[in-house]
């Protein structure tokens, strides 16, 4: 009996335990080991630092015209060369980046938020599905240009008055891009939510009294993360390029405001003589998108427990 009870105690001995750690630490651990994510992250930080802090080191003004040194190739005085008015391209790239990156990211976030919000609501609540999806159809069908024109017409002056010229235009452009690009995300998210909603763990969560809002944030959203991530990366590229489209239609920032998209657009005419004019902004946009993509990949992997640990 004593022997027996001894075994029993060994049998019942709990396995060695470790204190539970927070999920976010975990995610970070995983994230750290993800080469692509780290590379993307570092690159992204470099780009952001470059465009925001760069002007403190390279303090030539982006709009300063030096007509004698126009159309120059790379040199020590102008590492990236100059444009047709002799403006320093490096300075313009940095100034342009500051605008493009912030427009790209905010507009993407806005579109993502709107898209996921509408998508989740439509997928989750049967009653909202019809109206919300018809709304999405409506937005998809609206011609972009007139819509933007109307937005400019209605809101430019009030926003300028309320937030000042730059801020006002920034808000306007970001919302214009955000409002016109959330629809694909919404539809994709909705599709996934429709399928997810029928999974048994959703039923189980409901049975333990999870409210709809918690059900969405805790159970549904984490499981639709990957299409959202993809939308995010694609969205940033779209936003940067749409911004340039807005500027060359005359709907964007004032003309003396460089952005990557506009630099690229202006550079295209000079593609053959001065290829670096397109290479710099093209490269910058691509690198930003790539870095965000890798970040997104890493984040998604880090958040997916099945992949984590491998």
């Amino acid at each position, binding site marked *: 009996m004593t022997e027996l009870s001894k075994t029993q105690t060994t049998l019942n001995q709990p396995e060695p335990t470790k204190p539970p750690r927070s999920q976010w630490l975990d995610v970070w651990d995983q994230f750290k080991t993800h080469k692509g994510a780290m590379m993307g992250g570092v690159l992204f930080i470099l780009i952001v630092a470059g465009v925001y802090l760069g002007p403190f080191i390279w303090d030539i003004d982006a*709009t*300063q*015209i030096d*007509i004698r040194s*126009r*159309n120059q190739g790379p040199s020590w005085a102008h590492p990236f060369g100059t444009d*047709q*008015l002799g*403006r320093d391209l490096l300075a313009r790239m940095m100034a342009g980046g500051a605008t493009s990156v912030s427009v790209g990211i905010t507009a993407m976030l806005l579109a993502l938020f709107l898209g996921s919000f509408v998508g989740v609501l439509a997928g989750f609540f049967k009653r909202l599905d019809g109206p919300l999806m018809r709304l999405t159809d409506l937005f998809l069908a609206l011609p972009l240009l007139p819509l933007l*024109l109307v937005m400019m*017409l209605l809101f430019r*002056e009030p926003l300028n*008055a309320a937030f000042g*010229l730059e801020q006002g235009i920034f808000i306007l452009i970001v919302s214009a891009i955000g409002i016109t690009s959330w629809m694909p995300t919404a539809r994709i998210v909705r599709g996934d939510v429709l399928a997810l909603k029928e999974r048994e763990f959703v039923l189980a969560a409901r049975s333990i009294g999870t409210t709809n809002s918690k059900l969405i944030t805790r159970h549904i959203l984490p499981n639709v993360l990957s299409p959202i991530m993809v939308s995010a990366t694609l969205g940033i590229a779209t936003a940067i390029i749409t911004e340039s489209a807005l500027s*060359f*239609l*005359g*709907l964007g920032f*004032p*003309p*003396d405001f460089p952005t990557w998209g506009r630099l690229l657009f*202006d550079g*295209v*005419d*000079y593609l*053959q*003589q001065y290829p670096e004019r397109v290479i710099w902004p093209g490269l910058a946009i691509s690198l930003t998108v790539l870095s965000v993509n890798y970040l997104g990949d890493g984040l998604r992997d880090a958040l997916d427990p099945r992949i984590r640990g491998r």
Partner: protein
Amino acid sequence: ERGSDGNVNIIYWQAPSILNPFLSGGTKDGDASAIILEPLARYNQDGELVPFLTTEIPTVSNGGVSEDLTQITWKIAPGIKWSDGSAFTSADVKFTADYCMHPEGGCAQLTKFDGVQSVETPDDMTVVVTFDKPTPFPYGPFVGGESPILQKAQFENCMGAKAPECTTENFGPIGTGPFVVTEFKPNDVITYAANENYRDPNKPAFATVTFKGGGDATAAGRAVMETGEFDYAWNLQLAPEVIAQMQEGGKGTPIAGFGPLVERIMLNQTNPSPDLPEGERSTAKHPHPFLQDPAVYKAMSLAIDRPLLVEIGYGQAGAVTCNWVPAPAAVNSSTFSCDTQDIAGANKLLDDAGIVDTNGDGVREKDGVPLKVVYQTSTNAVRQDFQALIKEWWSQIGIETELRNINASVFFGGDPGSPDTFQKFYADVEMYANTFNGTDPQSYLGNGICDKAPRPESQWQGENISRFCNEEFDALHAELTQTADADKRAEIARRLNDIMVENGGMIPLVHRGRLSAHANTLGGVVLNVWDSEMWNIADWHRKTGS
């Protein structure tokens, strides 16, 4: 020999929408139809009238124009046939006038028929146009690319409100010109074939024409000068470097010609401040706080380096000008010179006028109002470069500039609901280009008359964009309308030009030419800025040896 040279490819980066020039004012449409339709007389490359469907140009001296200047008589050349083989008669000419002057037709060329009282056809070969008052320049109707003759038989049922229903007619007008339409794809491409019944049996040299539209100027230039896919490209508004680079492609040559087109900065004579109540902004109720001050606008003009603007923006397709009407040569005033930039002089001018920077923010004030201007223009690469440069120069004389660029279709669209149209002019200065058709500047100069200013009452319509108002100007213009003598007319025109510039209605910047390009193998091209560029397409031919 007719039809011996195969196909000629023309590219217009704006695509023609319709081949009836009376229903569209667009140059592209006019040019595309000029291949088919002809007026009685045209301007040549020097701005002189040459007869096309008539025997000669009627003048007072040859008796074609009545002494009291109210009548002009055209004699149609014999043997002219429509492309369907029927004879061209004076009835067609009269019909054209009726067609355009129909009150419900919405004819785009109505100004051509300004003052026309009647069009009579004493016989098949004679057309008599009577004006309601003496008209010193009676060559409006039936002259130039904008006013060609339509075939009565074809358009008879398309008058007035019915005009838009006549799709077949509008897309395939029968003409007397060297080519006939074989296929018209609106806003895309037109193919033409040589007109079997063209009056000159040896022309046109080409059997067919392909007239492609769409894309952008760069691509058009490239297609002619670099890849050689096309023979003729229209209106290459491109940076000089780009043109030069394309020329290196060796397949084509750019050609330039100068009409009266001027890129200018309009100075708002009224106050555009957003603080004013809607309806009073940019109206004569509130004069501009500083732009009417000669010191200010003269300094602004002095600070501009026009040769540099030309070099950067237009190259061989531009020239420095200080005038509103730089062409034809007779009306080009020589009062001003402005081809050197003088920042110091400009600063001195302002200092002397007591407009100085009182609060040390780098911006001068006049009577406490800082010299801050909003500078708007349409969206276009060259204009944005100009904006940047001028902003920079003005900043050197203590004027702060806020730049704004507006989508061309909004800027030039007359929507009274939009705050961004050039007519509404909710800015201090704005830049665009304007010109006139033909060689007579009378009505163009009328754009400076006080009551042509856009106002809320006129739905913001009106050509006096800067709201210029000068009694002397108005009186002088009235005199112009009464004057017949050419030299006297030219003198008044120069004087009007000077008043406008002197009093700060505008700052002329660049006299812009038109730059087109043709393939090296294409012969016979004569660039004509006074008429349609296609005016002599009958003479185009493939150069031998290529």
